[in-house]
């Protein structure tokens, strides 16, 4: 989790200075799609505040958007359709469009690119969550 937080901090700085993509939201969407845990909501709240602060926007607004997106995806991930990873692309597109609409004028080519890269990010996050995070349920039998 610590590593994920560090990565997200670095990405939030990069996104506010160099990359015009909302990578934080994409990662949060992907993680929520995989895991419907409380950590995703905490991350959405915290990084929403950080991104707002870095982008010199009103604090709280970005958190609300991130939280809403994460929670909605957690609800969706319980549905039967959630088994297909390609569903992530339209979901990301809707979430990113709403985010752009609230924050600024939406640039749809950028949103399409962001939606498309959400799929490889999803696989990276899944790899990370499956291989590099400790699962509480798994215990070594002696």
């Amino acid at each position, binding site marked *: 989790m610590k590593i994920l937080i560090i990565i997200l901090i670095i990405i939030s700085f990069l996104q506010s*200075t160099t990359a015009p993509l909302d990578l934080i939201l994409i990662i949060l969407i992907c993680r929520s799609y995989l895991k*419907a845990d409380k950590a995703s*909501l905490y991350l959405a*709240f915290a990084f929403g*505040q950080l991104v707002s*602060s870095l982008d010199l926007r009103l604090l709280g607004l970005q958190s609300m958007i991130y*939280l809403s997106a994460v929670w909605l995806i957690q609800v969706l991930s*319980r549905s039967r359709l959630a088994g297909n990873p390609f569903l992530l692309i339209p979901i990301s597109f809707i979430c990113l469009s709403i985010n752009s609409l609230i924050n600024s004028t939406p640039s749809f080519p950028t949103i399409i690119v962001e939606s498309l890269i959400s799929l490889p990010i999803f696989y990276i996050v899944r790899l990370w969550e499956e291989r590099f995070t400790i699962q509480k349920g798994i215990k070594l039998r002696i």
Partner: protein
Amino acid sequence: MDRVVPNLKLFVILITLSLITLILDFTHLLKFPKQLLSYITNPISFGLYQTNQKLIKQFHFIFQARTAGQENKALKEQIGKLLSENALLRKKLAEAESLVSQSQHLSLQTYNLIAARPIGLSRYLKIDKGTDAGVKKGQAVVFNDNYVGKIVSASAKNAAAALLTDPDSKVAAFSQGLGTRAKGVLVGQFGNEVLMDKILHEEKISVDDLVYAEGTEGFLPRGLILGRVTQVLERENEVFKQAKVQPIFDIRDLELVFVITE
């Protein structure tokens, strides 16, 4: 409930917190903590931004180098085309100048001239006009006031002219200078010189005298310049004097020559 709608309680709490933060920020109550945070985040953002700009410059340089290479290639092609166009224009200008110059020396109203380009020079001067253009055997080839040669063979599209230096060439000529005048026959020699023969001893001829055509052959007008005397050969025991004559210009320098048809 938690199975269908997960973490609803936490979501509501966090949304409420976000809303409170938003209201507080909207009323400028979070000014101090925001300032404090910006003291930490601003240098990091600035550093990242600077690094990004430097990286973009480097990549831009690579792209520019590639574009410059393509531009260079295109420009070279363009220069090649322009040079060839320039050469063509220069050639046409030289031809036009020759034509104007010719019209000043031999009146186009008196003589019917055909402009022709030299296309080869060995024993004969080859020109790019032939019988199709009205060139016939025996016609004179001139340039300005100077006699160049005589057409010895003509095909449909080109013709060959025997130059003054050709050993078969014989032209009745007279030389004229300051107080000197002599008559003779200009005979071609092998090489670049022509010999003026059959000059009487009592006739005066000296170096640098100009040699003109007598015009008795019929195919060329009287008074055309044939060359300049470079050496006078005078022997007491011989009946006639001789003089070495050199053509005034180099035929290889000519862009156009003119065939007198009538």
